[in-house]
């Protein structure tokens, strides 16, 4: 399990306990974090779970693969720290992670 802090576009903070094996997208949806619409349910298609990873966590979380990078190209507010929350599986190694939700 990992304690994950989601910060929405308005700066509101949501702290969630996310079970191992769930994705950051599921952790957000199950904890009613706004801005994670998850239309495709985790299929890396819709980019509605777009997040920014805090600088210090980027290495640990890792880079998007080719499929995810292609999907991310569709969003208009992409940054070097952009990821899709549905593609990041949680384990205890991500305890304390801070992410910013890209969409309002």
């Amino acid at each position, binding site marked *: 399990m990992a304690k994950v802090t989601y910060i929405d576009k308005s700066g509101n903070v949501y702290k969630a306990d996310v079970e191992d094996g769930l994705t950051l997208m*599921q952790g957000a*949806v199950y904890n009613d974090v706004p801005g994670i*619409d*998850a*239309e*495709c*349910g*985790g*299929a890396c298609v819709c980019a*509605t779970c777009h997040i920014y990873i805090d600088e210090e966590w980027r290495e640990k979380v890792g880079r998007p693969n080719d499929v995810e990078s292609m999907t991310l190209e569709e969003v208009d507010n992409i940054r070097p720290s952009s990821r899709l929350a549905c593609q990041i599986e949680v384990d205890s190694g991500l305890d304390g992670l801070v992410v910013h939700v890209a969409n309002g």
Partner: protein
Amino acid sequence: MNKYALNTWYPLTWSRDIRHELSSHRIVEQDVVVYRAAAGEVVAMEDLCPHRFLPLSMGRLKDDNIECGYHGMTFDCSGTCVRVPGQDMVPPKARVVTYPTHENMGLVWIWMGDPELADTSKVFDLPQYHDPDWSVAEGDALKINANYISLADNLCDPAHVNFVHLSTLGNSAGEDVKIQFEVQEDKIVTWRWINDAPPIPLFEKFGNFSGNVDRWHYYHYYAPIIDFGSAATGTGAPEGARDNCIQIYACHFMTPVDDGTTIDHWLHVKNFQADADMNTALSNEFRKAFLEDKTILEAIQEKEDQFKGRQKLKIAIDAAPIRMRKMIETMKAAEETNQT
């Protein structure tokens, strides 16, 4: 400004036509998919799957849920998505807008505006419709290729009856009798009495009158889309005695489909009992009369489209229709003010 007043109950269709199957209806330029749920209530929602925009009415009803005919996204009575084939997770925001409905007087009424304001006690009702001393016969859903305001004009206007409905609801008596009207809070009453004159063809057929009669003809218009014309004939009208009259309310419930299309749901309510044959005969008379109106209104719509912006002449009998239009404008303006 909005083209239509939205915070009001509109008639959508006859209750008799809504079953446990999908049907598509257009009202105030919106497409609505409608069905009767197993428990009997009428469900209405936007006729559009949020996925690829296929009309949901082209899908299937499965129990009380609509399954889209393209990829099977499934929505319950509240418009909430309950299934997306091919993915485990249903996106929390996937939903379809639903509209409040209510049934009264044989019709399904729908609220296209702010759902918070939808109060079913405000659905139009004519008490005589439920009175056992009166009887009711449902008419048609008459499609008229004209704007609903043009039909509303026609229903605040006893003067046209002398010229349009000579075979049914009018005769030449009283052509020059002045039209009276009264504006009330949310309605306009327009009327005239034509006393000591031959009965109109309808009452000649069904009234058993010998000699001249007093006839009073009222239109009760409730903004924006309800009107019932009260045609009564008897004797003693100048003295205010109306006890021995026959009276028929011809109700018009207008569905504004779009700029150039209106559906006139009409029925009649009368202060005497009638068997099926007589109701059919009466309905045939009204059907004939309302087709006469349809012909006039469609011809006018064509000319309005041809001469957009051209000023029309206003004559004495236009006093009530002008106020009717003003009433609708006021309703729409109030909705805009409340929004901001």
